């Protein structure tokens, strides 16, 4: 028997759920139907949890219709204004730059680890990047809040104002606490980095050795093989890294809630405080626990949750569909 070849997926017949038919005992139809159905029930667990979450969220909205106003920039519970536009935009302006940075750095690290570094070095360095995914977000949060933010506020941001003020949005004023959009982008970059790096690394590793070596044999340098052969060949994996990395940055809750500053208006520049949907939801729920809000307040939170969940699901479906294998990766947090 030859060892299974990973490139040609084998056909796996499902087991007969009722086992081999027993001859002799006659009234079998009911029993064998049950025996066929029962083993299938546990398989519905993940689907069931997902459906339960969606149903609970939809039920909680009470089908309140906020109309187009729901996406406006006015969030003012006292005056009955429920626009989540500020938070939606806030999620985008933190997650998109974080994604771009983590894709660029991740691409660089993945190329270095697959192409340039000797095996023993990358074997030692790669686990560190994977460890970034294992660190709890609340630990990132406290580190960023107490250690990194003062540095941002007193050193980095004044320097950026001095040297980058010609770029719109980088001109200041800064707040000296260092909390806000910039540090959130920094932390989200770190949190998305292990996902993007790992998926890009897998994509580059899955390029057949033949292609790699034919390129080198034709006289291309390693960089040219990476750029002209490996990256085009692994582009599905690289796109999926972008989608899943975005999903991670977009949905991150606690770390962002600790450092972004929970504003209810749009930030004026990159140093200003802001807010994201996940962070705002968490703050609202955390302070509403125990008391009861108005029905509209609860409906607004539920619909914000639905928007957040919807975007996360779309991004994740797109990202997962691009990965062909069963579960390409088994890393923490992915």
């Amino acid at each position: 028997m030859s060892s299974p070849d990973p490139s040609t997926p084998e056909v796996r017949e499902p087991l007969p759920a009722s086992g081999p038919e027993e001859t002799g005992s006659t009234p079998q139809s009911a029993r064998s139907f049950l025996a066929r159905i029962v083993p299938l029930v546990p398989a519905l667990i993940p689907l069931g949890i997902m459906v339960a979450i969606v149903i609970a969220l939809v039920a909680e909205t009470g089908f309140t219709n906020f109309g187009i106003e729901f996406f406006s920039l006015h969030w003012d519970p006292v005056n009955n204004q429920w626009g989540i536009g500020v938070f939606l935009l806030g999620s985008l302006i933190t997650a998109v730059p974080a994604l771009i940075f983590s894709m660029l750095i991740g691409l660089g690290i993945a190329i270095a680890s697959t192409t340039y570094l000797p095996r023993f070095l990358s074997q030692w360095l790669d686990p560190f990047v994977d460890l970034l995914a294992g660190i709890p977000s609340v630990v990132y949060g406290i580190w960023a809040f107490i250690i990194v933010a003062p540095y941002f506020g007193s050193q980095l941001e004044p320097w950026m104002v001095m040297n980058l003020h010609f770029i719109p949005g980088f001109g200041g004023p800064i707040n000296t606490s260092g909390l806000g959009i910039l540090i959130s982008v920094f932390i989200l970059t770190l949190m998305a980095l292990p996902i993007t790096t790992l998926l890009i690394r897998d994509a580059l590793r899955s390029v057949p050795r033949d292609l790699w070596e034919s390129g080198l044999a034709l006289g291309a340098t390693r960089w040219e093989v990476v750029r002209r052969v490996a990256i085009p060949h692994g582009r599905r994996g690289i796109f999926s890294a972008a989608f899943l990395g975005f999903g991670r940055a977009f949905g991150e809750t606690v770390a962002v809630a600790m450092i972004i500053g929970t504003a209810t208006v749009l930030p004026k520049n990159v140093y200003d405080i802001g807010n994201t949907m996940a962070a705002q939801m968490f703050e609202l729920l955390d302070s509403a626990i125990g008391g009861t809000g108005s029905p509209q307040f609860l409906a607004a939170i539920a619909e914000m949750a639905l928007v957040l969940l919807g975007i996360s699901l779309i991004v994740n479906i797109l990202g997962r569909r691009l990965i062909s294998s069963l579960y390409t990766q088994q890393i923490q947090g992915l």
Partner: protein
Amino acid sequence: MATPTVSKSILDSDNIRYDASARTRWRLGFDRVIGWLLPLLFVVAIAPILSLVYYISARAIPSLSWQVITSTSPYQTDAMGVPIIGTFELMLLATSIAVLLGLFGGIATAEFLSERTAGWVRMSANLLVGTPSVIVGYFGYFTFVIFFGWSLSLLAGTITLAFFMTPYVFRTADLAFTSVPSHIREAALGSGARPYQYILRVGTPIAFPQILTGIFLAMAIGVGETAPIVLTTAGGKIPPQTLFSPVSWMSSLIWQNFAQAPSTGLPTIAFQAAFLLLVVVVSLNVVVRIISSRYRRRLEGLYA
């Protein structure tokens, strides 16, 4: 005698340089420079980890002692016992439920479903993993705390966290059973094993190490989660007595205390909790790595 000299002159770098056009030299040089620059990007990933580990240890270790960790007086700045017990109990319950659900679900998906149906189930597990934690917490709050009326309690937190951890266990169990080599599977079935005999006596021993990594991974992720627990439990001053008692949880401790004034001593509690969490999470990750490297070696032996 002359032969070595000739071959040496062919390999001589002078000859190659004679051949190389300016463009080739540029290409080779670019490749070399990139080869030095790209590995430097590892610094971007590794420096923050070192900084994080260093500063959190530096803030936590001076005030941390065995007495602080074990003291169960209603928690003040000098007693971590209650949150540690709460975390331990909650993790134990949630992990048991998640393992139960995930294991059965994964095995059923890998062994009994057709490829098509299994694809849907796998996708939903992947989507659960990608669901923001605040959504899971919100779901737990309105379903268990409000709708079922369990109040902010150990039970509500347990079930919510178990739902959060289940897809991780599920995915590894599914993957572990799907990657049992098909010649072994067919040999077992061909010699007349019933499905449950195959699963218990053939599949489980082969899949076990990988399932174990899945469980540890789920624990590493679960123990650090904050949003689902903050929204479904209330911090108790004593270890939980019943399933409906409030329970305190390490990462909620960080969330509640990180922004307090330093004079209260509360940020120190947050740092102590963060340090302990970091120790637990990193050791779980190391265990996962050790098991999976052993497992890979074992699997290769199996394929041969």
